[in-house]
């Protein structure tokens, strides 16, 4: 298996896309460390991986808090070694029309979805630079390119992640470290279950594939980007959206 002997850190791995990514990378042979914001979440990650017969475990880490990131990474370094694969997946939404958007909703989304990516990436770079090998994959969103009414904060954060990723790719590619984004469209997760029937119907109309995506269909693209076969792909955003937006 291609990722044998490598430690992969996946943020926000309790459910949805993050969980699917954690399991896919573990299936490829990586030791996966998934993060959750609660102890119950971390335990669920551990038992989920164990039940599937995979190597890995969950830890508590709140990506919106710098101290929590530092403590979590220290734990990973001691328990497993330096992660050479980082998947920044953790994200939140606080949707509202701009005229009604509150400062705290703007800040919370920017902290959790954008600043966290800066912090975790910075923290793992030393280990990757030493190994002369690294994979950073940031989960963006189709709306980073499209825009979306009611998601000014989320779109800003995700577009920020894409710009950040391109800069990171330029800085680190000559060290064997690639940085890419995967931008899912509408995937069948708790985040899209919040939508009502009318919103869902309107959504399906603009998806040529005529269905929502599965978390596993995002995870398989992430797995490709971690592989040695993707060593020359960097600074790229790969869309996984059933054709609803083609960049």
């Amino acid at each position: 298996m291609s990722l044998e002997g490598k430690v992969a850190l996946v943020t926000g791995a309790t459910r949805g896309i993050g969980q699917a990514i954690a399991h896919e990378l573990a299936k490829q042979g990586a030791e996966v460390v998934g993060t959750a914001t609660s102890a119950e979440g971390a335990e669920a990650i551990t038992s989920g991986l164990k039940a599937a017969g995979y190597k890995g475990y969950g830890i508590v880490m709140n990506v919106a808090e710098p101290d929590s990131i530092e403590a979590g990474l220290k734990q990973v370094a001691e328990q497993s070694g330096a992660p050479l694969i980082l998947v920044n997946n953790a994200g939140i939404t606080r949707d509202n029309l701009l005229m009604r958007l509150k400062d705290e909703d703007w800040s919370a989304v920017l902290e959790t979805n954008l600043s966290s990516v800066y912090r975790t990436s910075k923290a793992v770079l030393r280990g990757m630079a030493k190994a002369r090998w690294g994979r950073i994959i940031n989960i963006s969103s189709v709306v980073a390119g499209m825009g979306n009414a009611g998601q000014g904060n989320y779109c800003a954060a995700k577009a920020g992640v894409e710009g950040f990723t391109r800069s990171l790719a330029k800085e680190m590619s000559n060290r064997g470290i690639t940085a890419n984004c995967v931008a899912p469209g509408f995937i069948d997760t708790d985040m899209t279950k919040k939508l009502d029937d009318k919103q869902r119907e309107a959504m399906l109309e603009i998806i040529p594939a005529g269905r929502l995506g599965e978390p596993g269909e995002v995870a398989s693209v992430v797995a490709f980007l971690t592989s040695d076969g993707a060593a020359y792909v960097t600074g790229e955003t790969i869309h996984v959206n059933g054709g609803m937006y083609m960049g």
Partner: protein
Amino acid sequence: MSTVEERVKKIVCEQLGVKESEVQNSSSFVEDLGADSLDTVELVMALEEEFETEIPDEEAEKLGSVQNAIDYIVAHT
């Protein structure tokens, strides 16, 4: 036990991929040894690990030559 000078030069060789004979005390990392900005960041990290010390960013920026690095380590460890 190697001297600070020997240990610094060894790290410089490893990090910048240069031969020991090319490294003089007066060598500038960027101008003489061909380091780019990322190389100098990595070099400082490697020195921090070797000498178990933390070099603040504002100090790290001043470490332009092999001798600068030796002086810093001698003064701070």
